[in-house]
């Protein structure tokens, strides 16, 4: 079982390397992290926090967009691509379970995400620590951001596989992935903010709003990192609502979402008829 999962993972890494996905993911993360690290260096003194903690707050806002995007870009092709190329029927005649194929892809894509995240955050942290040696006190926050980013990525990889299985065609899967990214990461927050403003401190703001934030993996990720690192001061908008939600709740959401997404993906893939 493990051997078959690793065999698939190895093959997927070969493919991702040839298709430049590894390079693209790493470059995206490194470039954006470095830009943020340079742009975010100004307000350090005013906030009284160390430079790295402030950077983590900026990186959280960046990752909430970028990590899901990279994960969806890597995963939307996973099943639909095999169907469209005509490689799936042959693969399914091999003595390998469907979930093992999916697990192999997940291992490969998660590995690439880990490499990209570590390279991006690492580069930004190195710059921050070189500029301000006291910033090492922010390493705990950075570590927390790193592993939660990986979990966020895994969630969106699972969502990408599920969409890929449901769409059946690569073009359809790509459209669904982009739509879902826009919906969950961009429009969801805008909608919630608009509702909060309209509600003006009523029942929606106190009960529905916190639950709605926890229900979205991207918001839970942002909440957890901002509350845990006590960098809420540096955050605005949705992050400002973080005080109402206990960290264990957002942590639970971050931990459970990958399982749900991958479970849904496995069920969706089982229903694909080659």
């Amino acid at each position, binding site marked *: 079982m493990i051997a078959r999962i690793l065999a*698939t993972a190895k*093959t997927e890494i070969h493919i991702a390397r*040839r298709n430049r996905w590894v390079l693209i993911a790493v470059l995206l993360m490194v470039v954006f992290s470095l830009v943020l690290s340079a742009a975010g260096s100004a307000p350090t003194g005013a906030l009284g926090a160390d430079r790295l903690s402030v950077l983590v707050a900026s990186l959280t806002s960046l990752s909430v967009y970028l990590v899901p995007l990279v994960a969806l870009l890597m995963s939307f092709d996973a099943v639909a691509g095999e169907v469209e*190329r*005509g490689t799936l029927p*042959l693969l399914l005649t091999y*003595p390998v379970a469907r979930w093992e194929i999916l697990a192999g892809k997940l291992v490969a894509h998660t590995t690439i995400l880990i490499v990209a995240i570590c390279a991006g955050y690492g580069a930004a942290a190195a710059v921050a620590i070189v500029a301000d040696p006291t910033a090492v006190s922010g390493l705990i926050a950075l570590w927390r951001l790193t592993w939660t980013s990986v979990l966020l990525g895994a969630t969106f990889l699972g969502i990408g596989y599920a969409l890929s299985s449901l769409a059946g065609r690569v073009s359809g899967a790509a459209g669904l992935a982009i739509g879902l990214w826009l919906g969950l990461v961009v429009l969801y927050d805008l909608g919630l903010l608009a509702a909060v403003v309209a509600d003006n401190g009523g029942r929606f703001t106190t009960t529905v709003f916190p639950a709605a934030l926890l229900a979205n993996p991207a918001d839970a990720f942002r909440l957890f990192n901002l509350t845990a690192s006590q960098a809420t001061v540096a955050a605005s908008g949705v992050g400002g609502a973080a005080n109402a939600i206990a960290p264990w709740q957002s942590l639970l959401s971050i931990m459970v979402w990958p399982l749900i997404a991958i479970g849904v993906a496995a069920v969706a893939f089982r229903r694909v*008829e*080659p």
Partner: protein
Amino acid sequence: MTSTLTISHLTKAFGGVKALSDVSLSVAPGERVALLGHNGAGKSTLMKVILGLIAADGGEISVCGAAPGNAQARAHVAYLPENAAFHSALTGLEQITYYMRLRNEDISGALPLLDRVGLAHAANRRIGTYSKGMRQRVGLAQALIGHPSLLVLDEPTSGLDPVSRRDFYELLDGLAADGAAILLSSHALTEVEARTDRLLILSGGRLVAKGTLPELRREAALPVSMQIHAHETHEAEIMAALPAAVRMNNAIHLTCGQDEKLTTLAQISALQGKVADLDVIPPSLEDIYSHFSRRDGQ
């Protein structure tokens, strides 16, 4: 010896349209069976049911003693799809290595395997740069991994040149001699005529004929045609002696039923001295195939 593949009364419909109805067949170890049929006759559907890729609506199937598609069956069955496709970013060697790992085989055999299908020189090139024939060979190589008890080959020689085809059938002969059961579909009728033990003809989802070529020939009872070349001056006499004969392209043509063959030949040999040459043309596989396929109203 028990059969490697046994199918009885298999039925499969897609949204009310019957793709396969009441199909029964078996393939024994070491036997090479050809599956013939028009496009849409149900060949690929039958193969996919055997492989467990799609479920049957009714009937019983046993693949190496197991249900189609379960882990035990898949461990013993190799498949070569029509137009074998692979990820274009992988090299031939990486692709075969992957398949060997999935079958739990020693991956040091990957290069020798590619060599066996004549691809060793391109092993480290991306499959995206391969020709159709080369991709088909990758497909063949993966079907040879391990020692499959049953090979299901969907138009395996399409895209191969004549020399490669001959090499391919030699490989199959070797596999069959080692006890593998082989079920292959083909459009190249003359090719399977010489290279398989038994023929199955599928038409409109029904198995309309099965047997060895001589058996099918007998069953079809198609007329034998004869072509007689006359010595120049004797043509009219021959025509007179054989009332059923017609003249065509400087030769005399004659057809007769299988049971009249000897009588007709006796008549012709009575014309010794007047006949310059005689060719007896048995019905070709194409004729027999058309006979069975058409009988079903196609």
